[in-house]
Every structure is written in C-alpha cells, then in structure tokens.
C-alpha cells in the first residue's frame, strides 16, 4: 500500500486532538449555518485567525468540516421556517416548506442530512480517484462555456415549475435578473439604476434579499392570516423519540442506495462536475439536479418531492468536494471558501498546485481522508441539530414570529454591517409577500439575482474576446454542446407550456 496514504491515515485517524477539533468545528459549522445571514464563507473567514495556531491538517480538517456542516445546517431553517441559508437551498425552499406544512419536516430533514452525508462522501471519493482528470476538464472552460452553463442553470429553474405556471417562474426570474443589474456594473465601470445613492452602488446583495423574500415574507403571510383566525404555522409534526429519527434516516439511507442508486450517483457526479467550475458552482448544481429529478413531469406526490430534495442536497454537498479540485490541482480557488483555504495553506508554507502532489502527497491524502471523516461526523451532530431545531419551532407563534423577524434583521445586518441591507431585506419581504400571494415562485428571483450579473459579464467578455461577433459564442466544441443542451431545455419548457394551455 502507498506509504504516503498510510502516513496520512495514521495522521488523521490516530490523533485525538484532531478528532476534537473536527467535532468542535462541526458544532460551530451547524450553529453558523443555521442562522440565516451567516454564510459558510463567513464561518471560515471568522475561523482564519484560529487556523493560524493549528497545523495544516487540523486547519484544513476544521474548515472542511465546518463548511459541510454549515451547508447542511442551511437546510434546517429552509425546511422549518422557509428561510434558506444559501442560494443552493433556495432551489427547493418552497417545496420543502410545503412538505413541512403537511407535518413531514422531520422526514425531509432526515433525508436532507443523509443525502448531504452521502453526497459528501461520494464527492470525496470522486475527488480522490478522479481529481486530476476532472481538473483537466475544468481547464477547458473559458468564459463562453460559462455563459452557456449559467443559461442552463437559469432555464432549469423555469423547468422546475409545474407546466401551467412556467410563465410565472420566468417572470420571477426576469425580475431577479433586472434587480441584479442595479449597482456599479463591473464590466462597464458605470453605475446603473443607482439614482446617485452611494448605498446602491454595491447593488442588491442576494443574502439579505433571500432572507427578505423567503423569511420575512413568510412572517407577513402568517400575520395576514393571524387575524382571520387561521393557524398556518405548520406544526412540525410530533417530535418522536430519537429512535424515530434514526428510523427515518435509515429509511433514507436505504432509499438512497437501494432504490435510487442511479439518481444518487448522477446527482453526485453532476455536483462534483459543476461544483469544480469556479463561480456559482454549488448553486447551479443544486438547481440542475433538482430539475433533473423532477423532469418526469408534474408529479407532485410527496414521496417524489422528498426524493428530489434528496438529490439536490446530494449534489450541493458533492459540489463542495468539487470546489477543491481546481484548488488543489491548479491553485485556482473554486469558490470563496477555497480562496480562504489557499490563504491558510500559504500561511502554513504549503503552496497548492500540481507540485503539492509530488512534494507533500501525505498532506493531500490527509485532506481526502478528512473529507470522509468530516461527512461522517456530520451525521450525529446533524441529528442533534435537527432535534434542537424541531423543538425550537414549537415555541408559540406569537413569540416565534417576532424572534424570526429579529433574526432576519440581525442576519441581514451582520453580513456587511450595513443598515442598507436591512432595508433591502424589508423591501424584498414586501415583494416576496405579494409575489407569493399571486402564486409566483420565489426561488427563481434569487437565482436571477445570483446569476444575472455573472451571465451578463460572461456574455460581454465572450463578445469582447471575439471582437463583437455573436458567432464567438459557439466557436468552441464544448460551447456548442452546452448551447444545444440549453436549446433542448428551452424547447422542452415551451412544449410543456403548449400542452398546458392547449
């Protein structure tokens, strides 16, 4: 057996302090991730000063664990309160909450936890086995391919909507994209729709927007029904004993591996492949797999929905591992988290990039193993967190609603330390409330807000590089393939709509 691998195994499994650090990081990650407004990136950035005192393996182990846990914990408020922690969970926020209203919260959360663990483990294995091959694929992607990939992500979010209401999803998406053009345009170096307000130069950040659209609007919806004597806050279902939750998790595990092995592998593969592309990897992965899982039409049966949510969480956890591929292989960060990781590694005198595989193979293997450990530690910590979350939601509604608002306000403020973001959250809360009442889905608004800017940038960059010739968008082989895929999705959407109106 490979001596470097043995050494790495000894280093990862044989160290008590490392285990303690990982468990502590898992709790910290769950805590930060479950608070709307605090992101996984922020968790890592806040951790950097501590990382200075740890050795590379422990520092990386802690970061990997806290990110995996934070991304999963983002699902807890998504499912229980419809406040997504990340744009990735916005993909299924509405559907998951609808299940919660039916009293299935515990089941959805168990599936989400198990799928996250499975996705994380498969992602780690793929990273180990095929990392450098995948990296070669990533290096073929130029701005043109990104443009088409973003377009695929956007059209998938329209496809997720049931056939008759796709125009509503499209309209929400366009609203999101229009909002994303507010602020200083990076490619034009020109302010747009800012009305000479300095605050608007930064544009509308998607985290406060998301908290407002989903969280605050839900509080408004509740308030609107309070006076009419309806009780619409879902009872989260009876909190069973721990045994019940374990049973759910086991059922979910069985369903992942026995009933839907193909879907599980497909979701993980998609997650890793899309996640390794620098940019909004995990978010697109989540939308695309959610769309793929629901492609069969408009089956809205609960079972199908739970499975689709499982697929999406699998993909977004696998995407985390994907983000490490360009980081380790080229030293180019795959997302903002790996950018911090590169900083931490450099601080430890480790330069990521191809040389790391030759000079410090045991460190690379340690990172791989830490990925596995992190995902396994997540299982018990996640179960505890779900249980805690379920009991918190049982606080009487009159007290719960103000506390949710308090969290929304604090979360929106703390992202950038700006009261303007709180204003954005409030306005978006109003918009979300109105859109929701008229049956417009909110997820596409968030995706439009996240991808609108990059899409325009890539389009302009591709056109600049080709000297303004629109054919420059399809002059590379992968670009052509992606363009055809986009067209197919659009045709599918149109045909579905035609059938619905006919």
């Amino acid at each position, binding site marked *: 057996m490979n001596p470097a691998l043995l050494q790495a195994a000894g280093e990862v499994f044989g160290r008590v302090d490392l285990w303690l650090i990982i468990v502590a990081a898992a709790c910290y990650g769950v805590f930060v991730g479950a608070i709307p407004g605090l992101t996984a990136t922020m968790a890592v950035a806040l951790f*950097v000063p501590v990382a200075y005192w740890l050795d590379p393996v422990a520092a990386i182990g802690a970061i990997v664990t806290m990110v995996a846990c934070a991304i999963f914990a983002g699902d807890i408020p998504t499912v229980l309160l419809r406040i997504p922690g990340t744009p990735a969970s916005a993909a299924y926020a509405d559907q998951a909450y609808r299940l919660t209203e039916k009293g299935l919260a515990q089941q959805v959360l168990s599936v989400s936890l198990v799928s996250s663990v499975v996705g994380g483990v498969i992602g780690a294995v793929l990273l180990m086995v095929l990392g450098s091959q995948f990296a070669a694929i990533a290096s073929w992607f130029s701005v043109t391919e990104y443009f088409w990939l973003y377009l695929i992500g956007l059209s998938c979010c329209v496809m997720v909507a049931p056939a008759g209401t796709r125009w509503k999803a499209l309209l929400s998406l366009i609203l999101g994209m229009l909002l994303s053009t507010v602020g200083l345009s990076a490619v034009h170096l020109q302010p*747009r729709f800012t009305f000479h307000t300095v605050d608007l130069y*930064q544009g509308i950040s998607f985290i406060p927007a998301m908290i407002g659209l989903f969280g605050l609007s839900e509080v408004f919806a509740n308030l*609107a029904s309070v006076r009419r004597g309806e009780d619409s806050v879902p009872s989260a279902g009876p909190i069973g004993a721990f045994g019940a939750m374990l049973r759910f998790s086991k059922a979910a595990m069985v369903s992942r591996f026995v009933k839907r092995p193909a879907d599980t592998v497909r979701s993980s593969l998609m997650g890793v492949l899309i996640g390794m592309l620098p940019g909004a990897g995990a978010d697109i992965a989540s939308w695309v797999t959610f769309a793929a899982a629901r492609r069969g039409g408009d089956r809205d049966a609960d079972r199908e929905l739970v499975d689709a949510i499982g697929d999406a969480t699998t993909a977004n956890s696998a995407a985390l591992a994907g983000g490490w591929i360009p980081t380790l292989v080229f030293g180019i960060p795959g997302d903002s988290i790996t950018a911090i990781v590169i900083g931490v590694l450099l601080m430890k005198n480790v330069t990521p*990039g191809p040389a790391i595989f030759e000079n410090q193979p045991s460190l690379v293997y340690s990172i791989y193993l830490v990925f596995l450990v992190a995902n396994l530690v997540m299982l018990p910590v996640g179960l505890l967190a779900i249980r805690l979350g379920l009991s918190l939601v049982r606080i009487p509604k009159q007290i719960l609603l103000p506390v949710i608002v308090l969290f929304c306000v604090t979360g929106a403020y703390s992202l950038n330390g700006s009261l303007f973001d709180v204003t954005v959250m409030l306005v978006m809360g109003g918009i979300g409330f109105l859109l929701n009442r008229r049956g417009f889905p909110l997820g596409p608004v968030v995706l439009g807000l996240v991808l609108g800017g990059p899409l325009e940038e890539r389009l302009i960059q591709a056109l*600049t590089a080709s000297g303004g010739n629109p054919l420059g968008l399809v002059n590379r082989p992968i670009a052509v393939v992606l363009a055809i895929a986009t067209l197919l999705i659009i045709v599918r959407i149109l045909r579905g709509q035609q059938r619905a109106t006919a």
Partner: protein
Amino acid sequence: MRASVPISWLAACRATVCLATVCLAAFGCNRREQWPQRPVTLICPWSAGGGTDRVSRQFAVQLESELGVPVNVVNATGGGGVTGHTRGATATADGYTLTMATVELNMLHWRSLCPITPDSFEPLARINQDAAAIFVSADSPWQSIEDLEGQLRESPDPLRASGTAAGGIWHLALLGWLDRSGLPSDTVTWVSINGAAPSLQELMADGLEIVCCSIPEARALVDAGKIRCLGVMSNQRSPAAPDVATFAEQGIDWSIGAWRGLLFPQGVPAEHVTRMRQAILRVAGSDEFAEFMEASGFQVAVADGEQFADFLSQTDADFGRILNQPEMTQAPSSAIGPYFLPSILALFGLAIAAFGWGVSRRARASDLAAEPTDRVFWKSRLRSKDIEGRRANVATFARRWFPDAFHALASVATLPLFGFAAVIVLFILTCETLGYVISAGMMTLAMLLMLRVRLPIAVTATVVIVPSLYQGFAGVLGVPLPWGWLGW
C-alpha cells in the same frame, strides 16, 4: 430615632456623591489614558477570501493584542471598492473605525465614481505594496518582455489580455507599459474579467494570451510551471519571485503596483491618531506579521504617517495623469452597452407578463360569464356624475379586471403587517444612534405586544433574547453590531 434618619440619609447621600465622584474620576481617567475602550471596526472594502481580506484579518488579530480590545473585520464590499471606502471615510471620527484602503482610493474619484479622495482620510500607515507583473502561458513562444513587444508590434490582430475589470489597476499597468514602449493601445484587447483568479483560469483555457496581475495572485501556477512570468513592473525584484527580471532590468522605465494601507476618517482627535499609528507600526514591524506576509507572497512596505501622506498625494497625481489620457477618458469599449441587457430583459418580461395575463384571463373567462358584460352599460355608468355609483363602479371594475388582487387585498389583515414593517423601519432609523440592544429590544417588544403577548412575558422574552443574541454575534462570533448608549 428621629435624629438618626437625617444622619443616615446624609450618610447615604454622601456615600452616593463619593461613589459618583470615584466613578467619574475613574471613567475620566479611563477615557484619557486607556483609549480604546470598546471594539474597533476594521473596514475591508473587498470580499471575504480575497488578498485584502486575508491581510486585514491577520492584521486585526495582531492589532487586537496590541490594543487590548477586539478588532472586528467588516467586509463592506461592492461597487468596485466604492462602498467600503465611502463607508470608511464617512464613519464617525471617534477613532473606532479603521479602513484598509487599497489602490482604488487613488482611482475611483478620477473616474467620478465617488467623491472620496485620499484627502477624506487621515493616513495612518501603508503596510504593503505589490508590483504588477506580466504573465503568459508556459507553452507560448515569448520568453521576455522584448519578445512580447515584438509580437505586439508585428501582429496584425490584437492580443487578448486581462487580470481585472476594465479600468482596474492591472489594466492601467498594462496601458502604461504600452504607452512607455510607444505601442498603440489597440494592440491589446482588454477582456474585462473580474479578478486575477478567473483571468488565470481563462489564460489556461486559451481564452487569453496575456494576464497582468501581481505575483502572489499567480504564484501557484508559476511554481507549477503552467504559466511564465515575463517581468515585474518595479525597480527591484520581488521577494516572492526573485528570479524574475524587472522591467527596469529589461530597459523599460515603468513601475506601478497596488498598495494597502490603514486610514482613519478625517477629524479623529490627534492623540488617538498617534496611539493607533504606534500600534499599527508595531504590528507591521513584527516578525509574526512579516512571516505571514512572506508566506502569502505579499511584499511588506511600511510607510508611516508623513511618508504615507506624501506617497498618497504622489500616486494620486500619477493616476490622475494616466486616467485623464484621451484613450482612458473614452468610455471603455464594450461589446454591448450597459443598458442593453436590462432593456432586453424588461421587454421580454413585458411580453411574458402579457402572455400570462392572457392565459389567466382565458382561464377565468368562465367564472366571469355570470357577471354583466354589456359594454354600453359600463360606459354609461362610468360617465354618471353620481359619486356613490362611481365608487361602486370602481370596486366592480377592480373585481372584474383584477380579481386576484382584489381578493388578496380584501382578505389580508393589513394592520399587523404594516405594524411589523413600521417597527423594522424604526429599527433601521434608530439603530445607529441608540445601539443594537435598545433598538432591537424596542422592536421585539413592540412586535410581541402587537401579537397580544402579555406584558410580563413579552418583557421577559425581550430581555432574555436580545442581549443574548447580541452576545452571540458580537462576543462569540466577532460580528460587530451597532454600539450605542448602553455601551452595547
């Protein structure tokens, strides 16, 4: 008994006065000698994970032990640096807000993007400066700046380059070099890619021929032999890449780079400036910081107050000269204009909305069949002078044409909705002055009472939740929340 009352009263009075005097004295002393007393905020104009963020966070940790109070980093991102620099310059001048300014401070005001100039700040110290460098792919034929220059001179097609958004520091660096070498600026097409990492990715995907950025940003790929550095735009070799020749060595007199420095807003009391500057210089000169900067590849270049002020005005004049050149003042050549995409989106959105409206109207046509549809009847009623009738008309009209909206408004209990919105607005307005705990406490209490929670329970909930939330965010996580009257 009778006599003892005034005596004890007097004693109590005296004790209170004594206590107050002691407190005041202690407080006064504290104020003068033990500044700072509360957490300091360090504004970083760039997002978490970037180079400036890394430097800021490392600096904050060391400054914290130097000052004895927490130093919290806030990422005030967006607007290409406008947001962070503006917030830093307009912060309260009490010495509790520092800004990690970057080279964009020299550039934004020349592009009239914001009114903030180096004069809006009180310079404390510059801590770092990184020279620009030119990178090409390892399998490209060019070995030196001269080769590349030759290529640019002879080739009929422009080469594609990037490293940052158009008009950013690395774009200026490249244009300055072309200018010094007597090459026309259209020999290079600048693709506006936001950031060095995606530009390098694009270089590897053959989407670009040249990348201009600083050495630490590209070091991993240079070490890996994937890309080649042709020259550093500086007079001395970079410690991060000592074997790369400088532009000066290759016979080109051109040096430019990005810098980072700490600034106070204008108007901070002089003794606080001195105290903070001492602390900053001690940190910047420490071995620990030097070690961190070396490991990250950043070049430490400390300049204290006076030198930094001179440096700022010098670079500001330089950038003004470059940015006012005719080719720079023209709008950056972009394939499509800034309002192209928004207008396309708006048109598309209108079309979809019209379509959707049609669909939902058709779907509801059957429901409406029962209501009167005679147009003449409607016209005559709308013309009628009778106000009551008109009002009824409007209502019927609304119900007829916007059934959803009508239904929604009629069924919503608007009072608590607007109540909640109003208290959030109140929070936004009062938070900066009163502080987070008072404002958020008032907001929570008001909301609880609006939902008819009994007063004792509401007060208890507020008193328990708000301070613990503050402690959780500000204390445990180090995410600063507004500080106000209570010192919270």
